[in-house]
Structure formats: C-alpha cells, structure tokens
C-alpha cells in the first residue's frame, strides 16, 4: 500500500507540471479562442532567458533574474498581441492557430541565436534530498515545485474569481462583443492574458528546466499537455488542473503496475490512451463546456 501511495504521489508531482503547461493553453484559448502552439516554446524561452540572466551573460541574483525573465515574457506578450494577433482580429481561429506556429518557431530561433543550442543545466540551489514520511519517499525538489505550482494555481483562481480584472478577462472569454460594449478594451485584455500565460510558462519552463536541463526538447512538453487538455476540456481551468493530476498519476501508476505485463515503457503513450477513453465517453472533456448548436 505504501508503495502504491508513493507511486501515486510521484505521479501527482509530475501531474502538477502538466497542469501548469495545460493551464497556459486553457487561459489563452478561453480569452481569444486561439490554440496557442507557442506555449511550449514560451516555456523553453523562459528557461533559456533565466539561464542567460543567471549564468550565461549576466550573473544576476536569482530574484532579479526571475524578475527579468518575467519582464522578457511581458515583452513577448505585447509583441505577440500587437504584431501578430492584432492584424488578425476577426479572422478564422485556424489562421490565429497557424500564426502561433510561426511564433513558436520564431521564439525557438531567437532563443537559439541568443543562447546557443547546447543543453544547459539550470541550478537554482533548491536542495534535492529525499525525505521519508510515513514510509513514503518524497523528493524535496519535487515538493518545492509542487508547492510553487499549487500557489500559482490558487493565485490564478483567486484572480479570475475575485478581482475585477479577472472578471473582465472572463467576460472577454465569454463574449467579445458584449465585453467591448461594456467598455473592456479587447487588446489590453488579450495582452494581460498572454502575460499571465507567460508567467505560467516561466514557472513551467523553470521547473522542467531544472529537472531535465534546459534543452530544446523542452518545447515538446507542450505535446504532453495535449491529453491533459482533452481530458480536462480545453475551456475549463479547474478541469485542466485536475486532468493534469489525473494524467500524471495515471501514467505513473500505469507504468509501474500495468507496464510489467506489456514489457514497460507505456508511460509515453498511456496519457493518450486515457485521453482517447475520455473522448469516447465525454467528447468535450470531463469538465468542458458542451457546445450545442441549434440548426
């Protein structure tokens, strides 16, 4: 039983990371109905930028480097909204989707030319020790990022539910025209959404970067969050958070308990299998809004 709990726990820790990346997708999708293919690249760029500020170019203290990284993501948010999205307002979502592809490549390219292509170790000085609590082994490193992610998620929920700006962003995501008619500036709201997505990407990128090293495959963690989005329903913020946990726990439990029967290595595709299953029964995800169109 302790073994089961341990496996579950490790899975949940990873799951929080998935939630984070998926959260970035969901935020932007809700606000502007854009499926943002650049979310992974944003995480990568944030991790690269932090490395640059911390070790490669400037040797800033950690807090300042983090602040500068967020600053860089804010600049990206403005650039994306005003240079890429603004001319495409009122175009079909597919066009915006393709535009974010371009943004993803642009970000990776700029990242490569500034910071080089080799993998980098990102060390934030977070202790990596293993504690034993009631017979369960917990990595302090995992725990640290789990707490940070949880705080971020609670912060976002609070922001969207309780503050006026959060309400304004939700209004924009519900109905663009109505939001305009009550005086909410659309571009500002979008920019704010992209900034928030940038901050979320920073946390995700730094967390994954310290765990796996800052490398270009980081932008593929975005693919890992696709099953999360499918299971949670892309337009539901609590949905993707819970789905991230389900996927993290599911793939770890699947690997450990089902893996041996089929020769192991099922971790990579197990989430997609789960997503397929959910699609079969709940085509809009577990928490997604069902779209019923009248004919």
């Amino acid at each position: 039983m302790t073994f089961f709990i341990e496996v579950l726990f490790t899975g949940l820790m990873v799951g929080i990371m998935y939630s984070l990346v998926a959260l970035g997708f969901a935020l932007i999708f809700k606000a502007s109905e854009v499926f943002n293919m650049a979310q992974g690249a944003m995480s990568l760029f944030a991790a690269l930028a932090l490395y640059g500020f911390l070790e490669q170019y400037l040797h800033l203290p950690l807090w300042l480097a983090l602040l500068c990284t967020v600053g860089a993501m804010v600049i990206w948010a403005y650039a994306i909204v005003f240079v890429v999205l603004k001319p495409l307002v009122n175009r079909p979502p597919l066009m915006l989707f393709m535009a974010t592809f371009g943004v993803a490549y642009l970000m990776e390219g700029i990242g490569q030319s500034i910071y080089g292509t080799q993998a980098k170790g990102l060390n934030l000085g977070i202790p990596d020790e293993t504690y034993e609590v009631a017979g369960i082994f917990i990595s302090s490193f995992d725990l640290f990022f789990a707490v940070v992610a949880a705080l971020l998620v609670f912060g976002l929920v609070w922001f969207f539910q309780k503050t006026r700006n959060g309400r304004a962003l939700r209004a924009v995501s519900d109905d663009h025209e109505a939001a305009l008619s009550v005086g909410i500036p659309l571009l500002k709201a979008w920019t704010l959404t992209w900034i928030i997505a940038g901050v979320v990407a920073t946390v995700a990128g730094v967390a994954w970067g310290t765990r796996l090293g800052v490398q270009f495959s980081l932008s593929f963690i975005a693919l890992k969050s696709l099953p999360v989005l499918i299971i949670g329903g892309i337009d539901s913020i609590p949905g993707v958070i819970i789905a991230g946990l389900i996927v993290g726990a599911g793939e770890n439990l699947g690997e450990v308990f089902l893996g041996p029967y089929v020769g192991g290595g099922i971790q990579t595709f197990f989430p997609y299998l789960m997503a397929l299953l959910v699609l079969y029964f709940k085509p809009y995800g577990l928490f997604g809004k069902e779209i019923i169109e009248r004919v």
Partner: protein
Amino acid sequence: MNEKPEPILRAENITITFGGLKALDSVSLEINPGEITAIIGPNGAGKTTMLNVINGFYKPDQGRIIFEGKERPKHMKPNVIAAQGIARTFQNLALFTGMSALGNIMVGRTMKMRANIFSQALYWGFSQKEEIEHRKVVERIIDFLQIENIRRTPASMLPYGLRKRVELARALAAEPKLLLLDEPMAGMNLEEKEDIARFVLDANEELGYTIALIEHDMGVVMDICDRIVVLDFGKKIADGTPDEVKANPEVIKAYLGTAGE
C-alpha cells in the same frame, strides 16, 4: 414645449454598405436627452445596423456621429465609446454565461471603476473599497429590476425573460448617458413585455435615462416612446411623435404594403 433641446446624439447622413447592399442610406437622426426614442421598421430595415453604428461596432462609410456636441473621430473603438457613456443590450442576448447574474452586472460597471486594468493588483486595499462602493450601486439596480432572488444564479441557467432583464441591468450598471436597447421585449409573452416596458419607462422617468430602443411591438412603442424614427430598406421614411408617425402614409405603406405591390 416648442423649445428644441440640444440632442445628446446626432447622426448625420450615415451610409454604410455591406458588399453591394446599402444597409443604411444617408440616414440622419437625433436623440434628445431625457426622451425615449424608438427606431422601428420592417425586418432588414437597418435598425440594428444603426445601433451598431451608434455604439461603434460598425464604422459608417459616410456621415458623422455627434455625441454631446462633439464629433466622434472616425475610428473610435467601441470600448472607448462605451467609456464615453453609451451602453447597450443585444437582440440575441450577449450575457457572460460563465458568470452569475451579479457577476454580469458588476462587469457592466467596468467603466465606472477607476483602478486601471494593470494597476489593480498593486492597490489591493483601494480596489477592495472600490468594489464595495460599486456593489452598492449594483444592488440598487438589482432592486430596481426585481431580480434579487437570482443574484447568484449562473447566467446560463436563467430563463430567457430573466436573461433579458440581467442584460438590461448590466447596461444600467454603467449609468450610461445614452442607453441603447435592441429589441428588449423580443420573444416575450404579454406579461413579461409589460414588465420590461415598465422598467424602461421607470428608467426614463424616475432615473432620468435617455433611451433609444428597437422594438417590433407597435402597441408598446406607441405607448412608451416620445419620438419614433421609421426606417425602411436602409432609408429613413418618417420621424416624429407617435401620433405623427401613425398618420404618415409612407409608414402605413411600409408596414402594410399597398395595392399593386
């Protein structure tokens, strides 16, 4: 009575074309402060287009809008126009379905809140106090429209008639100088219509709002409106008091058709 008040909004020679279709053809109209002005006309006459021009969703090809004596720059954004004091409701309802009725109405006060969209997080104490102030105003509106018991209900769960009322509440929450209502009584039964008609009338007489509305129910329009503008195929065919409009042969022709057509 004969003294002509300065109109709060004047539209001059508004022309707007969609593809080859002239949705509005050199239409001029005036909305006087403190009055209820109705825009009526058969389907496709350009009524909603006119409203969309007034609140800035559409930019007219020709013509100008003068609001409170100042000409509006050509490319003013709808959210800026909302900030100047023009609020509206929509023909097909545009509530924020993910929020409660209260949430919707609070969003309506966006323009009245001073804390800037970016600075808000920094002045937590200030915006908290501000929030409470605005909540009081919103509660008065909720009271006025008698929707106290559905405050916390998600907008998506409300029946149609109440959604319309919440949308009206959201527009009133902005305390607009000019309130545009696009078919506020569409799809309602007689009782609901009478309710809304009374709210509109009270908003005008008791709260002093200037209102322009589109409505198909002639009985209601004749009863509550001070002035009526009649559109047909994008052209203005009549403009005047209910009695004048009722007697206008052009209007009768547009509504009933004439022999030989």
